[in-house]
């Protein structure tokens, strides 16, 4: 189920809130588990079994790790962690990467792995990472094992963050799973956050997404240089407003249910370097890789070549996590290259340049990265990039470019401003009384307009089905 639909907003959500708040405290996790399973079953049906399997496996493994650790049998505890990782990676590997590997092997003439046409269960990349980190954290002593299967199930299946993150670690949420308070304060702030996220998704991301789709569908000969950049700019806004909008909605829904999730985005497009960009973009993913891959590999406390190698592994993994396709690997490695260059070559020099230059540098590299990300087919990606850099032998601009620019300019400006903390700052500077009046007005307007867009949703893509 997707948040930006009429049946989620006006059927599922109110019914869930009603059930949740009439349930006695003791039963709320059970209620959440049940409605979350319905949420997942709605879109994925039989594949809900994989999520349940993952839940049971990691629940058991967490208990085993704790049991062996308690008895001082570290070796067995380690084996239990390894077993959990194997299970999770095998699930992810099979459902997400089997066909990709098989297809890639067949492309070079090796046919021992058949392409099976496997359906990728939505959210599998998120929940396998969450459950895997759980057993690791129990082993590391960062959290205690969850003894209650209902509570653990609630953690894994929690519907607000189930299909598009943030990737929440058990050690950050475990206490809230066991005990949390629901206050009207929290609920009201959740409403605001949810509203912001819904508007980001429905009003900005979906709209600029149509602009990107128009350019993506063009043959290289139909493109223009300015048009290709406009298309990529549209995708740049689409992915940010879609993804951060989903995170906002998740955080908002979480608060309505009494949870406090971690922030996932921190205005990434105001970054002054690629290094900074990755501290602000999809924070829950980069910290996950840092904690459970980069540091175990040795981090930077090792020889320089080994450190470079560690980063290479991390960025290849980050790339392929976004989808089983070579362009995502290329996308990850692209960032590896520029992060290395910033760390080893021009990072310090960059910091001394005027801020404007640093912003232009970062945005330029980020825009190009989104072209690599958005176009999966190399046969289409290469000509598109060529056009962007003036090598496509096409005109600079044409009538269609003018049409699209005029049609989308107001929206692009709004998206541009919305990518900065400006509006948030203005809101917090508003006198209390003015804010108290403005909030219900904005909320009404937001709900009305979003309802209009969601009822007439001729275009409502879900971008993360590859994640």
């Amino acid at each position, binding site marked *: 189920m997707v948040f930006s*639909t*009429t*049946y989620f*907003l*006006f*059927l599922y*959500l*109110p*019914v869930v*809130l009603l059930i949740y708040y009439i349930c006695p405290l003791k039963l709320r996790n059970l209620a959440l588990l049940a409605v979350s399973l319905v949420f997942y079953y*709605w*879109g994925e*049906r*039989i594949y809900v079994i994989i999520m349940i399997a993952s839940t049971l496996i990691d629940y058991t493994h967490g208990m085993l790790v704790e049991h062996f650790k308690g008895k001082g049998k570290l070796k067995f505890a380690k084996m239990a962690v390894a077993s959990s990782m194997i299970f999770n990676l095998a699930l992810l590997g099979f459902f997400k990467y089997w066909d990709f590997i098989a297809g890639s092997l067949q492309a070079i003439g090796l046919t021992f792995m058949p392409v099976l046409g496997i359906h990728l269960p939505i959210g599998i990349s998120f929940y396998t990472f969450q459950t895997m980190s759980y057993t690791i954290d129990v082993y590391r002593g960062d959290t205690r094992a969850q003894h209650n299967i209902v509570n653990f199930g609630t953690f894994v299946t929690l519907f607000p963050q189930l299909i598009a993150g943030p990737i929440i670690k058990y050690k950050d949420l475990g206490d809230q799973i066991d005990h949390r308070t629901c*206050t*009207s*304060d929290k*609920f*009201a*702030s959740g*409403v*605001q956050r949810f509203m912001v996220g819904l508007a980001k998704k429905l*009003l900005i991301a979906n*709209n600029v997404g149509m602009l990107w789709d*128009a350019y993506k569908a063009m043959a290289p000969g139909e493109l223009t240089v300015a048009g290709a950049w406009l298309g990529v700019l549209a995708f740049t806004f689409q992915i940010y407003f879609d993804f951060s909008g989903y995170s906002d909605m998740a955080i908002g829904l979480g608060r309505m249910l009494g949870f406090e999730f971690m922030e996932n985005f921190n205005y990434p497009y105001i970054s002054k370097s690629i290094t900074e960009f990755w501290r602000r973009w999809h924070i829950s993913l980069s910290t996950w890789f840092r904690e459970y891959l980069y540091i175990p590999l040795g981090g930077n406390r090792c020889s320089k070549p080994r450190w470079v190698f560690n980063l290479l592994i991390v960025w290849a993994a980050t790339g392929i996590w976004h989808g089983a396709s070579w362009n995502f690997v290329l996308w990850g490695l692209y960032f590896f290259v520029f992060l290395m260059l910033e760390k080893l070559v021009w990072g310090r020099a960059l910091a001394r340049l005027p801020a404007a230059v640093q912003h232009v540098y970062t945005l330029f590299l980020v825009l190009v990265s989104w072209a690599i990300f958005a176009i999966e087919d190399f046969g289409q990606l290469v000509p598109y990039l060529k056009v962007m850099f003036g090598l496509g032998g096409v005109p600079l601009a*044409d*009538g*269609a*470019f*003018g*049409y*699209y620019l*005029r*049609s*989308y*300019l*107001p*929206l692009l400006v*709004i998206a541009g401003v919305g990518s900065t903390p400006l509006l948030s700052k203005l809101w917090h500077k508003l006198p209390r009384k003015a804010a*108290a009046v403005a*909030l*219900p007005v904005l*909320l009404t307007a937001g*709900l*009305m*307009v979003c*309802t*209009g*867009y*969601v*009822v*007439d*949703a*001729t275009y409502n893509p879900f971008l993360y089905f590859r994640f």
Partner: protein
Amino acid sequence: MSKGYARFITAFFCLFLAAFLVANLVLPDREFSPEENRYLAQRPELTLESITDDEGTFMTDFEDYHSDQFAGRDFWIGLKAWGERLTGKQENNGVYFGTDGAQTLFAQFTSPTAEDMAQRLSYVNALGENVDVPVWFALIPGKVTVWSDLLPAGAPLADESGALEQAAGSCVSVQWIDLVTPLMDHKDEYVFYRTDHHWTTLGAYYGYLALMEGMGLEPVEFTGTPELVSDSFLGTTYSAAGAKWVKPDEMYRWIPEDGVKVTSYFTGMPEEGALYVDSFLAEKDKYSSFLGGVQPLCVVETGHTDAPKLLLVRDSYSDCLTPFLTQNFSEIHLFDLRNNNMSLSAYVEENGIDQVLVLYSTANFTTDGNLFKMGI
């Protein structure tokens, strides 16, 4: 945030959701939306199979049902269209807003590939070869061509010229009649409905003059006064765009029905029809007042018994053209390929047809999936 205020915001949000939850439950489902001119999704049947099958039949159907039957759907669609317009968009749901204050609405036109167009034209030529009588072929240009001055500058999906040129240049066993020039000559007149994809009766009249000339017949110049039958017509393009701000169109009738016998085959069985069906004027779908809407076959017999018999392979644009044709033919057989699987060549022989005219709007000709039946 004070506690009271937080409660107010919480209650406000919950009541908004709950209001529509209840409204959607209580309000009766609609079967047809005149505003959108389509049948709405109905409540899917909840069975063990429908919620467990691989396709997720129930869930998918329920999603359509829930948004189709959403309380105040027409209002929300209009709100969204306004939202698009106010943020500077020059289109909504595949419809361009004209530069005349978004009063003229243009359905977008997607050019077919040359191969696809060639395939379609081959069916027309096949018809020409299969019958022994002359076959004429004409495509009606759309508003995007005739009224291109009103299109938003640079609108990308609006160029029919490639398809029209290819059609004109590919006629082997049929004879092409150009309708672009005669309509362009009158582009400052009310030849298309602003809110519908069809041509107006005036547009059809200019089409009639050009068609008769092309077929070597003497067109009858109109000297009467057109009768205004509706000033509140909001057509299909309006429906698609949700453009609640447009002024409605006017609809006229030119030729009286005197001495004409119409036999309609709405269900395959002959029944008495009419050139004009007044009851549709009271509904949203006013264009169907011409001939009474979609029918696989319609036979119009006139008093000009000496005149030739015409077979018209056609789309709905011919509905308002037919009254003009009654002046030049003894019988007009209107053949709609969409719901009619009879062999055209056999039909020509059995009914003693003298001339065949294949007449489609460019938009329909480039998208219809039934043209292959012409070749059978």
